[in-house]
């Protein structure tokens, strides 16, 4: 079972209370599709992903970015049960969406970079470490149902 220190809990909850899900979601998800273009393979139905400008202005990318942030919020709201929280989503990503789980951390990296740019000095190394741990737990939970 994951053990969270008080500092870690507060840090994670604080981050999510400060960020705008629509803004950060769009920024992180579009950055992932641009920087790691092979991730586009899962979004064939999203319309024009032809270049960075198209991706950045794509409304489906923007709305899906928000969906991702809202899904992450579920984990933030119940940090003691992240594995259970994502059991269904894990099965979805494995069986229906068939996403290579290595991609989860790529999105995680982009999210960390966007959050760091937004929060600037408030995103201290210690807060960064807590966020990194949170993402590792999320990714591990999403990998759980793969077989």
């Amino acid at each position, binding site marked *: 079972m994951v053990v969270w220190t008080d500092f870690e809990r507060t840090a994670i909850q604080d981050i999510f209370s400060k960020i705008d899900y629509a803004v950060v979601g769009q920024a992180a998800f579009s950055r992932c599709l641009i920087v790691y273009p092979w991730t586009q393979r899962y979004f064939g139905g999203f319309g024009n992903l032809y270049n960075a400008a198209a991706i950045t202005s794509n409304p489906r990318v923007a709305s899906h970015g928000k969906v991702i942030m809202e899904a992450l919020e579920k984990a933030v709201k119940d940090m003691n049960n992240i594995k259970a929280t994502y059991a269904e989503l894990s099965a979805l990503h494995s069986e229906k969406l068939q996403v290579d789980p290595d991609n989860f951390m790529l999105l995680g990296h982009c999210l960390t970079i966007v959050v760091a740019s937004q929060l600037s000095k408030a995103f201290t190394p210690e807060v960064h470490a807590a966020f*990194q741990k949170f993402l590792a737990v999320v990714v591990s939970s999403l990998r759980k149902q793969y077989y």
Partner: protein
Amino acid sequence: MSLSGKDKTVVKNFWAKVAPKTAEIGGEALGRMLTAYPQTKTYFAHWSDLSPSSAQVKKHGATIMAAIGDAVSKIDDLTGSLSALSELHAFKLRVDPANFRILAHNLILCMGMFFPADFTPEVHLSVDKFLQNLALALSEKYR
């Protein structure tokens, strides 16, 4: 994922912009790496202070960034220009090359933090490719 002419131009232009802050970025990135990825501390057990505020950490971060800056100027032949450093990392330091990726991530994060307007997704892409190629050049002599 080799560097296109465009990638090289983007990296050089961005590096010129961040030049005044490279030492700081390096120190900050190394400090964050040691804090957020504690397994990397194993390579620095000989230092007395591994916290982000440590003078040793800041100095070494600056050293790393200076070497990267040098690589930027020799971007057309990374393997050749990093030959000596590759030997050092391979035979003396024996750093698992997986860690190069971790440091690269932290460097990129700091670049994004210090230069949020300039570190666009396109710049991020070229810098990510560059650091990946650099890591490859650094791993050249390993086996």
